């Protein structure tokens, strides 16, 4: 292959990658444009448009976004903590213990990859009503805390850990939970990080189930708050809605920008590939 054609090839690829990148970032770019300009410039893209922070102030006043934000934060943390706890124990059982019914129970776990809580909204709503949990943060979280995906992923990781390490720890007198704590969990850190990021971004953005099961300011996560905020009689006000969107996804956005390299690396090491 000649140098010239190689160069041409590379140039073409770069150009195409850039075109696609510009297309992909367009929604974010538009959100920023409208958020920092007066409403009159929502559909007029002139560089001389005056800058303003008023949209952020308006959005902040119009809806209790601080509260929504707190709700989402509590929700995501609660789900992640429960998922780590439950999935770790279950994955450990599947990876390192022999017991009757293991294959069958693992199949039941995998079934959840297919039959997700998102689909069983009707029944889960009834359950929440029975438990008197409708309109609480645990009600949003509970259907997701035992994650089939999480169990599967951690089991895969735990199975790659050499048994010798396990046995060495046991000889030193560690109990079966001690082994989990001292050997398996530290070695599975990348998996936890990768899974954690997937989980956080999923639940941060989740909408349908929270929409159904919450109906007050004290429990509503950001996504539901945003949808109510934008569905008012008087038409869509993009500048204010986008300011609200940026405010509420800001932290996640910044975290992603800062940690994108570690994120991808943890994915690689976690064997999600």
């Amino acid at each position: 292959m000649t140098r010239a054609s190689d160069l041409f090839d590379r140039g073409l690829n770069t150009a195409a990658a850039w075109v696609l990148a510009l297309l992909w970032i367009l929604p974010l770019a538009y959100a920023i444009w409208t958020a920092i300009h007066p409403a009159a410039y929502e559909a007029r893209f002139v560089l001389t448009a005056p800058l303003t922070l008023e949209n952020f102030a308006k959005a902040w006043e119009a809806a209790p976004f601080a509260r929504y934000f707190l709700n989402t934060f509590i929700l995501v943390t609660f789900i992640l903590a429960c998922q780590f706890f439950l999935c770790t124990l279950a994955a450990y059982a599947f990876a390192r213990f022999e017991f009757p019914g293991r294959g069958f129970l693992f199949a039941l776990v995998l079934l959840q990859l297919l039959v997700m809580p998102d689909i069983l909204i009707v029944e889960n709503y009834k359950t929440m009503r029975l438990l008197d949990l409708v309109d609480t943060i645990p009600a949003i979280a509970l259907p997701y805390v035992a994650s089939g995906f999480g169990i599967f992923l951690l089991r895969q990781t735990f199975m790659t850990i050499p048994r010798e390490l396990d046995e060495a720890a046991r000889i030193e007198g560690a109990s079966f939970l001690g082994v989990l704590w001292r050997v398996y969990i530290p070695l599975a850190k990348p998996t936890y990080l990768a899974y954690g990021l997937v989980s956080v971004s999923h639940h941060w953005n989740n909408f349908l189930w929270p929409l159904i099961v919450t109906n007050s300011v004290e429990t509503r996560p950001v996504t539901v708050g945003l949808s109510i905020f934008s569905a008012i009689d008087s038409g869509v006000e993009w500048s204010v809605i986008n300011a609200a969107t940026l405010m509420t996804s800001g932290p996640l956005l910044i975290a992603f920008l800062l940690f994108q390299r570690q994120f991808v690396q943890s994915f690689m090491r976690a064997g999600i590939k």
Partner: protein
Amino acid sequence: MLKSTLLKAVAATALSFSTWASAHAVDLQFYFPVAVGGKAADTIQELTADYVAANPEVNIDAVYAGSYQDTVAKAITASRGGNPPQLSVILSVDMYTLIDEDLIIPFDDYLTSDEDKAWVEGFYPAFMENSQTGGKTYGIPFQRSTPVLYWNKEAFKEAGLDPDVAPANWDEMVEFGKMLTKKDADGKVSQWGVRIPSSGFPYWLFQGLTTQNDVILANSEGNKTNFDDPKVVEALQFLVDLSQKHEVMAPGIIEWGATPKAFFEGQTAMMWTSTGNLTNVRNNAPFEFGVAMLPANKRRGAPTGGGNFYLFKGASEEQTQAAVDFVQWITAPEQAAKWSIATGYVAPRPATWDTETMKAYTADFAPALVARDQLEFAVAELSTYQNQRVTGVFNDALAAAITGQKTPEEALKEAQAQADAVLEEYR
């Protein structure tokens, strides 16, 4: 089984405690939705606080429950869980659903004196239409609206029309529309004549057209619809013709949410939308605009919309009495004026418009009067048993006709058949 018994026992204990506690003060829980931005919620909270300050023996917990959808869901859920609110503002069209779910009680038992009866008579009849059924009053109008026509005076001037005169009837609307529609040589339109949004809940604005064509969409028992009436077909044909034949409106489904923006951007010279938009248009239109009643055809007409107060089952006698008293207070002229000015909702009693506050407001902003004057011609918003489903069927039929998949007649015939199937069990 055991669980539910246990729950009931707990609920009963809690109830007896609360009745004991309320021997001194009556506690009320009151849900309300807001559909027009943030200020409305504050106004309700303020009004409630005023009432409690004047009536120390009553304690009201006003709960902002989100959108209309949220509020009805929350009220139904809470009632099923044995913890209903005593009072709630819910869409007027949900009356039959709430009756069907056996959740509400009529106001009549608590409005027995002649004075009370006269008070019920004091609301605009258009608002009472879908607040009463079977001779009983289930809803008291509170946050009510109606659609009106907004027009761009500058565009009228440019097209050689009198900027101060809106179209009075369908023919004029088409005629004006043709003059206002700006088309270049390639047939590209930069400004449409009129815009009647049809996304989400097209039935509401369409009901303007049917009323003007002198036909009512559902009976007052809420168990029979008239979707395939020739006059309804005619009205739908007119709506379709606006884009297909007369070419004064954009083709296809027109988004409700983007409509005010399209008006501000000069994409359309006239728009039909709710009075709930008055404040928005006033603040954001970069040109002079006018507000008029919807144009007439066989008659003038428009639907009403918005929410009513409902009394919920399961409250003590004292609580319900207090709730009724609160409703009477908040719909009284002074309070209603405050509410109407803050939100753009139409004050539900004629007396409100005679208050000094309201007079000062309308002197400054005359368009607010248009909605009131239109009420004389307004009818109940389409409402039946299983309301969401029946209007859903109707909306689909309208969309199918607007997008040219079915003829108006075909679409409406099918919708009527489906609605009949749903409503049969309620006859």
